């Protein structure tokens, strides 16, 4: 069965005077997709949602909903917007209206439904989100989790083709997060197309068929939950998922400050409470592989990148050393003493190519 494209995003850029959260976003969202949008703060996740429904029009680029350009000057924006519901972090309910009035208002005003129709539909939706008994309450009488469930019911009342969720649980007491996620999970099971900006990684993993990892002003990596969470392909995704702490040193001269780097390694170890043994082993890798082996091999204009990655999540340390020039054969060309020390400090040594095409050693530290 061919997938039906619901939204196409083409070269979308959003620039503000001082910051450009979206540089070049391109993707297609298919009917039935449940996409969690993850990434560090300030990487344009919410901006993307606001561009999609034109609350914040893109600076350039195009967005198509069912092949109609919502970004075109002559488009029927209000009609296209109806296809997309939006659920906000801060609920945005009308506090002077009851729960059921909040839900009935838009269908009556915009879809031309009768009060009875809007009421019946509203009550049905409130039952779906488990809040039928709160129909006559005011939003202020509800908990944060209940307010957000009302906001979801209100969005559903407009019968959207897809729903955009902008951090729907971020403003909630941790004990109320589960009830909101449960409602979203049920919508996913019913086949609702959804784009969910979230920091709830386990939820994203469970409920989505796709994950967008956003960074650098783009959808940096788009993949299945399995790919993104278990086998991220790109560097920044990996750091984010593994909650990596980094230390990086670039060596471009034979007269580089050895003592400063050695101290930085010690400081890095102290900062993240790494064992003295691990710190010792990191020093061994730095000295034996970087300084004693690769640096002399680099000639007069060395270019070495030494990076320690400590994963808070797996409590593991990896060192990556990227270097310019030909690949170095450790077993054949490394001094025997240095090689013995290096082997003893590591559990595995692999070779790879960086994204820039440079040779790289990847060492797991004991």
């Amino acid at each position, binding site marked *: 069965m061919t997938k039906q494209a619901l939204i196409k995003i083409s070269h979308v850029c959003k620039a503000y005077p001082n910051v450009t959260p979206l540089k070049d976003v391109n993707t297609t969202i298919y009917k039935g997709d449940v996409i969690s949008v993850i990434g560090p703060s300030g990487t344009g996740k919410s901006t993307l949602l606001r561009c999609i429904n034109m609350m914040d029009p893109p600076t350039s680029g195009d967005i198509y909903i069912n092949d109609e350009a919502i970004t075109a000057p002559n488009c029927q924006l209000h009609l296209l917007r109806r296809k997309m519901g939006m659920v906000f972090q801060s609920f945005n309910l009308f506090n002077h209206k009851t729960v059921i009035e909040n839900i009935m208002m838009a269908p009556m005003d915009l879809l031309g439904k009768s009060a009875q129709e809007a009421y019946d539909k509203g009550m049905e939706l409130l039952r779906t989100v488990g809040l039928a008994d709160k129909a006559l309450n005011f939003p202020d009488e509800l908990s944060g989790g209940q307010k957000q469930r009302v906001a979801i019911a209100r969005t559903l009342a407009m019968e959207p083709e897809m729903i955009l969720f902008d951090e729907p649980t971020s403003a909630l007491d941790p004990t109320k997060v589960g009830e909101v996620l449960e409602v979203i999970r049920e919508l996913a099971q019913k086949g609702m197309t959804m784009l969910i900006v979230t920091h709830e990684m386990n939820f994203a993993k469970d409920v989505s068929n796709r994950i967008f990892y956003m960074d650098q002003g783009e959808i940096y990596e788009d993949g299945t939950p399995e790919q993104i969470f278990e086998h991220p392909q790109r560097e920044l995704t990996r750091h984010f998922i593994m909650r990596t702490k980094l230390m990086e040193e670039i060596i471009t001269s034979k007269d580089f400050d*050895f003592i400063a780097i050695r101290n930085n390694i010690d400081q890095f170890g102290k900062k993240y409470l790494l064992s003295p043994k691990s710190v*010792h082993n990191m*020093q061994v890798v730095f*000295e034996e592989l970087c300084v*004693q082996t690769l640096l002399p091999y680099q000639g007069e204009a060395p270019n070495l990148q030494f990076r320690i990655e400590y994963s808070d999540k797996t409590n593991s340390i990896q060192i990556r050393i990227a270097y310019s020039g030909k690949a170095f054969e450790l077993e054949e060309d490394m001094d025997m*003493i240095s090689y013995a*020390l290096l082997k003893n400090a590591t559990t595995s040594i692999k070779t790879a190519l960086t994204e820039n095409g440079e040779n790289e050693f990847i060492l797991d530290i004991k």
Partner: protein
Amino acid sequence: MIIDKQINGSELTLSLTGRLDTTTAPELEAVIKENITGVTNLVMDFAGLEYLSSAGLRVILSAQKTMNKQGEMVIRNVNETINEVFEITGFIDILTIE
């Protein structure tokens, strides 16, 4: 690294404190070179040694070779970390460690 040097007749004792690595190994090499003539007993005291790299090992190996010709060399007060370095590099079979 601090190198404390004591000469007692033909016995030379070098006590090392700190790290014997790429930057400090040349210092030890220089001290040995300056003082080795006529020495029949070279004692290296590693009680204060925290870290030993291949650069340091090469200086120790060179000293051992020299002393093989003119007397003997002993290494004392080796801690667990340094001893492991000697073991994995096979130096434990070459050196006299007390």
